[in-house]
């Protein structure tokens, strides 16, 4: 279908939309597309080698790498999904921005990044090859490539659905125009282009949505008024406390215990995501030196701590001020709105012409930054960890650069295919969160054991990763077949789906580490000289003690720790 046909089709679809855009709004959206494509074309001449294309020449400053690190995570699902979850679960959703971010991001910066950086690896699977063996790299590389494409497709589908509901745009139009734009600018400028646009998108996301919490708080009468209104609407205090209701599974809307939040979310899922998901780690690895690479996640963690202002607060405000109740997606009939429409509904509530265009641009920017992150990470892992070692080993740099560009297009096309696949099987969307826990939590166990324990062997790493992933899938399947097992895995019959995800990730991490240790004790480790720069104790990590204290990553990590404690105390 041509773009002209798609555009005509999009214009026809306006019967049930929530928002009508003015010419000013449309102009803002068009300028955004022109700008991101222009940046891609401009950066084309700077992506001349594979190192430029896949690692942005390792020239990024700490600020650029840090904002890009965070922006790659601020996808459309992240923005709209967590605003929806806040409407459903209350402020408990903020745990996914606080305990699920600060400790793991600081851990990446201070403990793990030095190994990634000084080993000069191009990717996380690449580190596993250096530390363990080819088999471990292949296992993690293939699973990561599949997961990335699937996540990208799901994001794309979610965005297209929102554009259809909110703006009346045709689903095919949204999918093809947005994804072809991402394909164009990432193919042209590689990681340079992805990072530049992610920083730009970071600003747009913030500035586009910021009007909602500002005007929302005025309408609600400040925090006190907000709490009062929520209490009147839901007759419960559970929605405005972070920790107070986590003593029991049944005492909070999420059906989770504090141990699940601290160990499952903060320990397994968050550490897995922020320290081993190459989608985000790649941005920090593109920094110009080790100090910048360490500062990047720390800078990102400060901003991550205040993202609830534009995601969680709009969800709470919707609970307080919207004159009607939102319902789950499955229960939404004609004239009703689902949880997933919280953020667009709040934008439509407060934004007039111009500001509304900026708000919609923020949602599109969120989608595109998430997709560009997935696609650029996919191209890197596919080229370096699958194509180069297993398909064409001894080719020139120009060849791999060319493959990288084609992989970007391939990644986008596979994502589009996944998006259409999801339109046929909508329930798969529910399983995506689970897929992340299958692969990411055990991967963290494999990486961290290899970094910290000299005795971990190649066979231990491989079988640990396989056992962790396999056990996670087995637990998930078991609960699907016999729901009674939820009480065993999540430790309570009152646990809900979210709690099951958290505990399953924790068990798979523990199983991965135990199997790695057990197999390692019976197999031969690699010689010490092969582990230099890869393992704690065998590596000379450059010291920053000659720097003034305010320039050291650890100083800024302490700052974010204090910020974290204050937030927990305020919203306890």
């Amino acid at each position, binding site marked *: 279908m041509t773009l002209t046909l798609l555009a005509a089709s999009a214009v026809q679809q306006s019967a049930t939309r929530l928002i009508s855009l003015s010419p000013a709004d449309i102009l803002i959206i068009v*300028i955004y597309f022109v700008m991101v494509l222009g940046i891609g074309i401009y950066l084309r001449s700077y992506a001349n080698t594979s190192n430029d294309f896949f690692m942005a020449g390792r020239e990024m400053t700490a600020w650029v790498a840090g904002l890009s690190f965070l922006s790659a995570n601020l996808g459309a699902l992240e923005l709209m999904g967590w605003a929806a979850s806040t409407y459903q679960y209350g402020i408990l959703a903020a745990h996914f921005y606080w305990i699920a971010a600060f400790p793991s991001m600081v851990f990446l910066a201070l403990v793990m990044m030095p190994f990634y950086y000084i080993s000069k690896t191009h990717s996380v699977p690449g580190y596993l090859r250096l530390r363990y063996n080819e088999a471990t790299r292949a296992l993690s590389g293939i699973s990561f490539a599949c997961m990335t494409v699937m996540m990208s497709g799901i994001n794309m589908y979610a965005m297209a659905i929102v554009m259809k509901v909110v703006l009346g745009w045709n689903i095919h139009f949204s999918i093809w125009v947005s994804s072809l734009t991402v394909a164009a600018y990432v193919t042209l400028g590689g990681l340079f282009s992805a990072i530049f646009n992610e920083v730009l998108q970071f600003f747009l996301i913030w500035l586009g949505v910021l009007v909602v919490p*500002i005007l929302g708080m005025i309408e609600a009468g400040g925090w006190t008024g907000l709490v009062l209104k929520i209490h009147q609407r839901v007759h419960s205090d559970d929605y405005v406390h972070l920790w107070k209701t986590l003593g029991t599974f049944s005492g909070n809307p999420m059906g989770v215990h504090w141990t699940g939040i601290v160990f499952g979310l903060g320990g397994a899922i968050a550490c897995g995501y922020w320290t081993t998901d190459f989608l985000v780690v790649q941005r920090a690895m593109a920094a110009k030196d080790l100090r910048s690479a360490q500062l990047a996640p720390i800078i990102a963690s400060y901003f991550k701590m205040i993202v609830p202002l534009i995601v969680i607060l709009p969800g709470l405000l919707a609970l307080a001020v919207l004159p009607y109740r939102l319902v789950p997606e499955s229960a939404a009939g004609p004239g009703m709105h689902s949880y997933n429409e919280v953020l667009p509904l709040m934008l439509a509530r407060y*934004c007039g012409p111009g500001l509304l265009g900026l708000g919609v641009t923020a949602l599109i920017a969120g989608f595109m930054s998430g997709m560009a992150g997935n696609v650029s990470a996919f191209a890197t892992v596919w080229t370096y960890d699958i194509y180069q070692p297993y398909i064409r080993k001894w080719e020139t740099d120009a060849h791999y650069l060319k493959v990288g560009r084609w992989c970007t297009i391939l990644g986008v096309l596979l994502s589009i295919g996944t998006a259409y696949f999801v339109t046929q099987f909508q329930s798969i969307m529910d399983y995506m969160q689970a897929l992340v826990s299958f692969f990411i939590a055990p991967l963290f166990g494999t990486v961290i054991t290899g970094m910290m324990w000299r005795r971990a062997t190649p066979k231990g790493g491989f079988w640990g990763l396989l056992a962790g992933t396999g056990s996670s899938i087995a637990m998930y399947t078991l609960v699907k077949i016999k729901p009674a097992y939820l009480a065993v895995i999540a430790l309570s019959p009152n646990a809900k789906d979210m709690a099951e995800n958290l505990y399953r990730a924790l068990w798979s991490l523990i199983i991965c580490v135990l199997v790695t240790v057990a197999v390692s004790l019976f197999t031969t480790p690699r010689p010490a000289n092969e582990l230099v720069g890869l393992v704690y104790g065998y590596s000379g990590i450059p010291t920053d003690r000659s720097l003034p204290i305010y320039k050291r990553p650890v100083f800024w990590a302490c700052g974010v720790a204090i910020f974290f404690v204050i937030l927990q105390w305020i919203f306890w």
Partner: protein
Amino acid sequence: MSRETHMLPVWFFIGVLLTIYGVIIFVTALVDYSQPTAVVLAKFHPGLFGGVFLLLIGGFYAFWFWPGRRKNR
């Protein structure tokens, strides 16, 4: 001189885009001033404040990271 020195910084692109957006939103809010669109709290004219805010941020970045100015520093 490193290659990064020759590359226009991302902050410049951000400045240009936000300045353009600031102008569009400010002008739209001015045109809309006497009969604001029926949104909640329209009496505060958020478009005017938003437009000025974007102009200030965008203008700062565009000015500070303007290519010619950057070379002189």
